[in-house]
């Protein structure tokens, strides 16, 4: 049985043109696979390149070398070489991503934020919203908040909306970047349950979790990203976004 997700020789570096073209190697030769129903956790200190790897799988970051094979409609597709249309298609049908922070469109109600990926997949509006509501309730987001845009929510509430959005559709591959970071113990448990339910459904999951407890309860394997470290010139990865934006701001 083919692994749902397979990385081979994946290498990434940033070239900072605004800083005289300095090259920031991030990772080199990353190699691992995730099978259906498996949860693989990426571990390593801050800046090791864990988020970058997830973003490369999602097509959000480019990949300088190597292959990222994703099973799509029974065929392997190399995300590293796929064009824009292909990646959009993959995101619609195969690969889901729960980022660290909710990037919410202004003015859209929380329940519609959550329902959106289902709507994009062709599910009817009423059903999508009903399911979104169920998941939000389960994640302890009170109903009075559902009609409000998440921009005014607390960090924890925003993250739970983000999680609901990521977990609602049935995508074969799910990428989780620190899903429990801003949650209390009770909500962490709910998320762990959700992850395990997804695993039982056969979803292949690659996650980044700092909390040892969560990792212990969800990950089948742990991959130490520092194994694939390339030589560093500066701290490389920053949590709030790509190094290009933050380092360049420092220059100014």
């Amino acid at each position, binding site marked *: 049985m083919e692994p749902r997700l397979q990385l081979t020789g994946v290498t990434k570096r*940033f*070239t*900072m*043109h*605004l800083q005289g073209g300095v090259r920031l190697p991030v990772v080199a030769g990353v190699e691992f696979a995730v099978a259906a129903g498996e949860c693989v956790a990426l571990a390593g200190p801050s800046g090791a390149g864990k988020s970058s790897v997830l*973003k490369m799988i999602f*097509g*959000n*970051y*480019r990949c300088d070398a190597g292959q990222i094979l994703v099973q*799509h409609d029974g065929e392997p*597709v190399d995300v590293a070489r796929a064009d*824009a*249309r*292909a*990646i*959009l*298609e993959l995101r619609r049908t195969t690969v889901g991503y729960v980022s660290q922070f909710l990037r919410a*469109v*202004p*003015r*859209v109600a929380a329940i519609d934020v959550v329902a959106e990926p289902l*709507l*994009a997949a062709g599910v009817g509006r009423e059903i999508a919203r009903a399911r979104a509501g169920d998941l939000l309730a389960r994640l302890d987001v009170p109903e009075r908040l559902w009609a409000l845009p998440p921009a005014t929510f607390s960090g924890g509430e925003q993250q739970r909306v983000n999680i609901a959005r990521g977990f609602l559709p049935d995508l074969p591959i799910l990428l989780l970047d620190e899903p429990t970071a801003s949650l209390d113990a009770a909500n962490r448990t709910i998320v762990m349950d959700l992850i395990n339910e997804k695993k039982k459904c056969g979803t292949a999951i690659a996650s980044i979790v700092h909390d040892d407890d969560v990792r212990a309860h969800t990950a089948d394997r742990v991959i130490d990203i520092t194994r694939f470290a390339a030589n560093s010139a500066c701290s490389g990865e920053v949590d709030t*976004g*790509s190094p*290009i*934006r933050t380092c*360049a*701001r420092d220059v*100014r």
Partner: protein
Amino acid sequence: MSAPDAPLLLAEGLTKYYGRQLGCRDVSFSLYPGEVLAVVGESGSGKTTLLQLLSTQLLPSAGCVRYRMRDGVTRDLADLSEAERRFLFRTDWGYVHQDAALGLRMNVSAGANVGERLMAVGWRHYGRIRGTAVQWLDRVEIDPDRIDDPPLVYSGGMRQRLQIARNLVTQPRLVFMDEPTGGLDVSVQARLLDLLRGLVTELGLAAVIVTHDLAVARLLSHRIMVMKGGEVIEQGLTDQVLDDPREPYTQLLVSSILPA
């Protein structure tokens, strides 16, 4: 991948010179149904020239634009007769101007503005024309009670929304937008962007949006094309180009956004 559907709009080596002055050079891309392409750049980047070339308002110095008509046949737009071009503009295409006054009849009622395209393609039932206009005003969040007011008495944001309604009433497949939120107040912009986003998804519109505002590009588009000095610097998936810019100019552009 998905079923092999043909591209809706194809630009091949589009080039425009104004005398010796370069407008844009060698722009090529394919746009598929339901895809939104943002063309970003600063003043003088050639993005507006490109939009005008694509919408046949300018003739290219070199290259061509091809469009798949409703009957499925892909035609070189330079081969269309004036009548065909006008018909296309009135039915299958929309063009949203930065200044709403350019895209509206300012002295004619909002209802007539929205109904004009319908009447131009043969609608002859006043009640139905008016009913459709009411529906569209509602959809772009203009109070239908204002249907008989001319856009002269509308605010800037309302005018822009009316322009959108006027363009979408014949259910075009492709919409060109030139800085659709330019000159509007921030809260008005947010509302408009939200509306556009909703409509584009709901109607499965393909769109080419020219903007200097990267936030607009990020919110509305699937793909992005960065232009400078008439050349395409970088193009690709919007979030990829904005989060992992490769070219020096793109990196400069992305890093220049002031944090909110």
